């Protein structure tokens, strides 16, 4: 809860007086908070710098070091102050958190040191206030990334450890993906790289004209035609290597479908396919044209280098992510080209021997002009043509020059945006989770507290201290307040699960019409039923019973005297209390429609001396303490709707 809320609790509790006349059940007694010593000033000495604050300030956050009893470990009785051997500059922020409820992050301190201080004082990093939260997370992430990089670099030499007994496939795949893991993989990596280079160079060289020395005059021929066997052998060797590599990768891939669909494998296929097609297609003039075209695809082998080059991969990714911007550029260019080509065509239509024979023919002129290339193979001759031509080249500068920086900035924007979007999504989840946790924390605290046996007076002695979950005074009072509300409305707080169960039960219609005997039903042994139902089947034991001490009688018995009434139950041995809860239901509500389960735990006979204490809230209260005491060591989980009947 927020800082100052604790100080408003007395007001909220006082306002509960407004519920009193409406309450149909008597409200539970207030927790007996030990007489506080009033508000006092505590001195906290952090490495020599003394901070002083009210005790109440520190008590606002009872689940931190300073707010809980943990600080007593640091108490120095001689000087009467709490001494911490930590950084005093950081402590200032921690203390301000208690004072203002907002944890600020110091700008000039190392984020790691700050984190350590938070951990020491029991503060969760999520408590950092909104004003400083983003910066805190950024710096933390930077730190983490840097550390991760260092670690990676360290580990790079070792390589990831393979699980023992990995199959050949896994080893192969790992060798392919991380060539530096083993020598063989490295050798393979370099060999394939070499052959890619050889293949590409061969493709290039075979088109260079070499001087044929066999005939006179020397006829220029491409080298590929002069030494066909040599080139063919080289090509075969490269393709064999590539095919082998591809098949090995296919074999080793953990997910073959995914591998087949991946870009790299497609490039591989495109690189080696023309060769095989060429093998199976005979040297036929009809098809050889197509065959020659296919040889073009051999140039795609150069893309195989992207496996060897990180930069190429990044470039590819960049282009892919900027696809929409590129598309826009293309579209706007196309528009401009079409417009200007049309204009030029019609402007130059009249001229004879003009190059602008059609609009598509004018496309070439427009592109060359707009990109400021200006080859000069097509020039307008009419005045109108020249005018429009100049307009075209001017606008070309604009149309081309503008999108390019936009793309560049887009790229960087997109890149950073992606990073930030992921960050924000994670932060949002954490923030929502934090809010939900805080809300459910208070809800759950109360429900949990009810589970643990309900609210009773703390005056029952030391036996309780061992078992009762340690709750701060604030929590006690807050739970008492919620308990009062429950009593006022004759409904209980419960969680979603029980609620949906109950909804289901109601819809069955079986429960709500349980009759209650409005007339007096003797309080005492008769109404105390002990059924040996297991805990989870407690639902079926829900019944209504009106106790005699109900409001209809107009008088409410003193809680103390009731303890006497409760004293003569069916004899229960203490040990039997260990096993099961005992269901008995008292409901002081007049209304019959309420189906509430209240368990009053019968007093074990051995407890008589305790019952004479006048300040107790009734037998129920003490009984539960003994019940719980006897269940020491077992988790005290009673069904949620266990309540101590206060009558």
């Amino acid at each position: 809860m927020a800082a100052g809320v604790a100080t408003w609790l007395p007001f909220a509790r006082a306002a509960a007086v407004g519920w009193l006349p409406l309450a149909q059940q008597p409200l539970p007694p207030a927790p007996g908070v030990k007489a506080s010593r009033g508000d006092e000033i505590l001195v906290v000495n952090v490495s020599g710098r003394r901070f002083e604050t009210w005790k109440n300030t520190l008590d606002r956050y009872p689940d931190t070091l300073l707010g809980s009893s943990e600080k007593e470990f640091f108490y120095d009785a001689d000087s009467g102050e709490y001494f911490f051997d930590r950084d005093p500059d950081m402590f200032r922020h921690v203390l301000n958190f208690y004072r203002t409820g907002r944890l600020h992050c110091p700008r000039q301190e190392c984020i790691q040191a700050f984190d350590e201080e938070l951990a020491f004082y029991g503060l969760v990093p999520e408590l950092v206030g909104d004003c400083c939260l983003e910066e805190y997370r950024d710096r933390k992430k930077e730190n983490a990334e840097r550390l991760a990089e260092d670690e990676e670099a360290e580990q790079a030499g070792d390589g990831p450890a393979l699980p023992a007994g990995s199959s050949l496939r896994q080893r192969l795949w790992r060798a392919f993906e991380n060539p530096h893991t083993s020598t063989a993989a490295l050798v393979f990596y370099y060999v394939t790289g070499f052959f890619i280079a050889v293949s590409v160079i061969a493709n290039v060289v075979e088109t260079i004209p070499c001087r044929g020395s066999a005939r006179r005059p020397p006829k220029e021929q491409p080298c590929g035609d002069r030494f066909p066997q040599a080139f063919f052998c080289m090509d075969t060797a490269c393709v064999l290597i590539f095919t082998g590599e591809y098949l090995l990768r296919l074999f080793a891939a953990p997910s073959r479908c995914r591998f087949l669909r991946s870009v790299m494998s497609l490039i591989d296929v495109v690189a080696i396919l023309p060769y095989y097609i060429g093998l199976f297609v005979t040297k036929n003039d009809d098809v050889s044209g197509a065959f020659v075209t296919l040889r073009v695809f051999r140039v795609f082998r150069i893309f195989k280098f992207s496996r060897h080059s990180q930069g190429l991969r990044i470039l590819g990714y960049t282009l892919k992510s900027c696809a929409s911007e590129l598309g826009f550029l293309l579209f706007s260019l196309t528009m401009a080209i079409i417009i200007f080509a049309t204009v030029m065509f019609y402007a130059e239509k009249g001229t004879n021997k003009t190059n602008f024979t059609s609009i598509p023919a004018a496309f070439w002129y427009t592109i060359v002009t707009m990109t400021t290339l200006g080859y000069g193979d097509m020039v307008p001759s009419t005045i109108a043509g020249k005018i429009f031509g100049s307009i075209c080249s001017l606008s070309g500068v604009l149309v081309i020059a503008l999108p390019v920086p936009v793309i560049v900035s887009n790229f960087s924007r997109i890149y950073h945006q992606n990073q930030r979007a992921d960050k924000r999504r994670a932060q949002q989840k954490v923030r929502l989770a934090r809010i939900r946790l805080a809300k459910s924390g208070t809800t759950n605290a109360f429900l949990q507290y009810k589970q643990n046996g309900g609210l009773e007076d703390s005056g029952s002695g030391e036996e309780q201290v061992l078992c009762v979950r340690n709750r701060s005074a604030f929590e006690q009072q807050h739970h008492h307040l919620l308990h009062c509300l429950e009593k006022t409305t004759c409904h209980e707080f419960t969680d979603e699960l029980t609620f949906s169960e109950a909804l289901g039960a109601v819809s069955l219609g079986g429960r709500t019409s349980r009759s209650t005997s409005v007339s007096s039903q003797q309080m005492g042994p008769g109404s105390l039923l002990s059924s040996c139902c297991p805990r989870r089947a407690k639902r079926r034991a829900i019944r209504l019973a009106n106790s005699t001490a109900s409001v209809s009688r107009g008088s409410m018995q003193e809680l103390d005297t009731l303890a006497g009434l409760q004293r003569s139950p069916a004899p229960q041995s203490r040990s039997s209390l260990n096993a099961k809860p005992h269901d008995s239901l008292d409901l002081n509500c007049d209304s019959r429609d309420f189906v509430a389960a209240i368990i009053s735990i019968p007093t074990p006979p051995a407890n008589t001396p305790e019952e004479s204490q006048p300040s107790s809230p009734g037998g129920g209260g003490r009984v539960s303490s003994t019940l719980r005491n006897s269940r020491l060591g077992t988790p005290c989980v009673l069904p949620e709707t266990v309540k101590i009947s206060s009558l």
Partner: protein
Amino acid sequence: MGAVMGTFSSLQTKQRRPSKDKIEDELEMTIVCHRPEGLEQLEAQTNFTKRELQVLYRGFKNECPSGVVNEETFKQIYAQFFPHGDASTYAHYLFNAFDTTQTGSVKFEDFVTALSILLRGTVHEKLRWTFNLYDINKDGYINKEEMIDIVKAIYDMMGKYTYPVLKEDTPRQHVDVFFQKMDKNKDGIVTLDEFLESCQEDDNIMRSLQLFQNVM
């Protein structure tokens, strides 16, 4: 309060310029920083000791540095105690009960006066305060509609997940029971006297009134 308001008002009367009144008023509203009367005066007026007043004021000032609570803040504060349900309606009625002068803001004096009644007052005073709370339109009578509004607001605070399941007419039934008990002459409204009388007859209520003695 008297001192501060006195100076403000005297300042105003000194410079009575019709055109600039509004501006001054607005200025005052934005910079209002209310200071309560002296500690001794408050101690005399309420049933708290000086120390208790000090603790109360420190908490109050922490949450509301300007010295007054407006309804929004009030609702937020109250809602934090009842995270399960919706406490805003009840907080609204509560706010009206605290804001005795109907100014729209609760000053520290109002706050402490009400707390003094609730925690340290006599039974009579507490019951009268409760009557005032239920009497939404402050006409001196509680009729069924007001009561139903109040009870609905209380049930709203329970939230959705209750056991047993809350039904539509639960508040109405609750109010019927209440009226049966409180309305002596069965005329459909409860007056202060009827209320006081019925409450004093009910031991339940009498005992519960002592519950919050030691809240401070």
